[in-house]
């Protein structure tokens, strides 16, 4: 690296913004490209290994490393049977639908409730408006671990353990502080002249909210929706505690965890199961990358 630094130093002393001579550009660019390529390869290899293994027959997965497929590209056998096995006999098909049933309401409910609250905090007058909002922000610090034991007891008394509503409500509660906070910041920064003219035109708060504020807030709502969707989909802890691993209700993360526990060396199944678990988040990532980045970066402080 020292040579690179020296090269660029000489280039910089006779600094020409448009054309840093051919040789210095070459000397400067190639090491950078190589380092980046190396990091990218290291980052991608783990996932590639899983993907390749999930399409190899059981015998092949267990007898040779997945990287050997590159040595004899023509003579490899490929199969979908790992996926059909995992989806049917290991219950990942059901788990995938269960995950959807958990995740969709657990995403939409907190956003709806938080958007109403954010509008109320930003544009309505009531006693305690400021300190109630400060309280909501303060709740950001409470880690989920603080809620597990009392909520489990509460759920036990009302017989809610092991049901989807248990998870919908829990994820709603856990997601609310961040959602209210972020949406309040966004909705509060909409121009007040707009709100006033809506009010002069006779719009009620409810109409202002649904016809004006919600359409204007689509980007922030989408970002938070994606963040919350991924958070719930990828969650293991909350599902483990309130839903449990029974076959009829378990979600993909629990199914994968159970498979890992019961058949920890069945790599042909584990790799396929892992990929089924990842497929939807990765699809979301690839198609909605812009919103995804903003949602994740904003939501990364979630408790």
């Amino acid at each position, binding site marked *: 690296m020292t040579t690179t*630094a020296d090269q660029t130093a000489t280039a910089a002393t006779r*600094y020409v*913004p448009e054309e840093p001579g051919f040789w210095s550009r070459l000397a400067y660019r190639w090491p*950078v490209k190589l380092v*980046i390529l190396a990091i*990218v390869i290291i980052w991608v290899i*783990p*996932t590639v*290994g*899983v993907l390749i293994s999930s399409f190899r027959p059981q015998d092949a997965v*267990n*007898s*040779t*490393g997945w990287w050997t497929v590159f040595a004899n590209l023509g003579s490899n056998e490929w199969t979908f049977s790992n996926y059909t096995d995992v989806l049917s006999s290991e219950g990942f098909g059901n788990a995938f639908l269960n995950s*959807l049933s958990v995740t*969709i*309401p657990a995403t939409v409910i907190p956003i*709806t409730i938080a958007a*109403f609250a954010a509008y109320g905090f930003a*544009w*309505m007058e009531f006693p305690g*408006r400021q300190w109630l909002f400060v309280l*909501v*922000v303060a*709740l950001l*610090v*409470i880690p989920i*671990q603080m*809620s597990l*034991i*009392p*909520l489990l007891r509460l759920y036990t008394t009302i017989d809610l353990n092991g*049901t989807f*509503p248990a998870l*919908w*409500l829990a994820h709603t*509660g*856990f997601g*609310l*502080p961040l959602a209210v906070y*972020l949406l309040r*910041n966004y*909705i509060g*920064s*909409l121009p*007040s002249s707009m709100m006033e003219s809506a*009010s002069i035109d006779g719009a*009620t708060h409810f109409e202002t909210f649904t016809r004006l504020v919600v359409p204007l807030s689509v980007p*922030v709502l989408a970002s938070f929706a994606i963040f919350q969707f991924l958070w719930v989909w*990828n969650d*293991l802890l909350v599902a483990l505690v309130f839903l449990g691993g029974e076959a009829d209700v378990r979600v993909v*993360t629990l199914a994968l965890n159970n498979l*890992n526990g019961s058949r920890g060396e069945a*790599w042909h199944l*584990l790799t396929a199961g892992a990929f089924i678990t*990842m497929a939807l*988040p*990765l699809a979301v990532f690839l198609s909605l990358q812009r919103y995804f980045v903003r949602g994740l*970066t904003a939501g990364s*402080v979630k408790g």
Partner: protein
Amino acid sequence: MTDRTSFDAEQTDVSDPGGPVSVPYKGPGPNFTTQLLRIGVSVAVPLIAFGILYWAGTVVLDENANRVLVVFVALIIGVFGVFALFYAMDWVTNRMPERYAHYVRPFVFVGPALVLLGVFLLYPAVVTFRLSLQDANGEGFVGIDNYIEIFTDSGTLEALRNSVLWVIVVPALAVSIGLAFAVLSDKLGSKGEAISKSFIFMPMAISFVGASIVWRFIYNFRPEGFGDQIGLLNGIWAGLGNAPVAWLLQEPWNNFYLMVILVWLQVGFAMVILSAGIKSVPDDVLEAARIDGANEFQVFWQVIIPMIAPTLVVVLTTIVITVWKVFDIVFVMTSGEFGTSVVAERMVTEFFTFGNEGRGAALAVFLLIAIIPLMVLNVRRFREQEAQR
């Protein structure tokens, strides 16, 4: 604007911080009935919603229900149900005499959120704190015994030691690699930069469980004489002529092998935020430094780093918070055995495996205390940024 911890990109630059729309209302003030109605509308939405969810989730969608139907009903309830409840509440409020409706209406909007926060965060936090002062069965009062045990019991001490290690190593590595990658990829063409960044960021979409399986495969070990190594690391290691190693059993190094997984997941986050920070450093500042004779190395350390320091702090604190709460990775990889337990994982183990409610609660309180200062720092930074806009 130095980073993107907020949804600021779409926002127009509005100096007005926002505030209540002043509705000219000169009627009588709130009275006792008003307060009752306020509480009523706040509680009504969550309560009715709970009733419907309970009915939908347990009666209609029992174990034998068709899975596609389950998804469908969940979708309908999630998308329309809650909104319809708010609509109904607003309708009811509008039918009240205005002397009540005026005061009650805001609570139609904020009430449900406040009630849910109370039930799912505030109330449990208080109960957990109380439990942390009680014995294993959550009955007799034992004072701070649980906290003393945390710092004396060898099992929890090990979890504490490991968590501290995680908190030092993971953020340091994630931020260093993320920063290096952000700086280097900045020097590529815009297309190369975007593509290479998405590869690094991609693991962030993967669940901790999924990532753990991915890396268990990497660390896979077979004793010599039991066939070829199928784990990549042992494949390389054995290929170099060494005896294969059971990586996850090597105390204390196995802790670091687990940390690698979280670094793999978090570098993308650090990289994206730091990259936005680096790009916000004005070009003329960099040019001025170069014209003054600074080399790229000096530009990086003496211009870029000081200018993105606030962003660096946010990224570090955010990752530290994530690290304190890491549970899934340890749970899936080793179940906290072989000297790898961490606080958040130990909390679950104490409670669910050992049935020790008091100690589990005390560990949760410990996590809360560890996180509070970091979160305060982050929120304060966020507010400063909002104020600057």
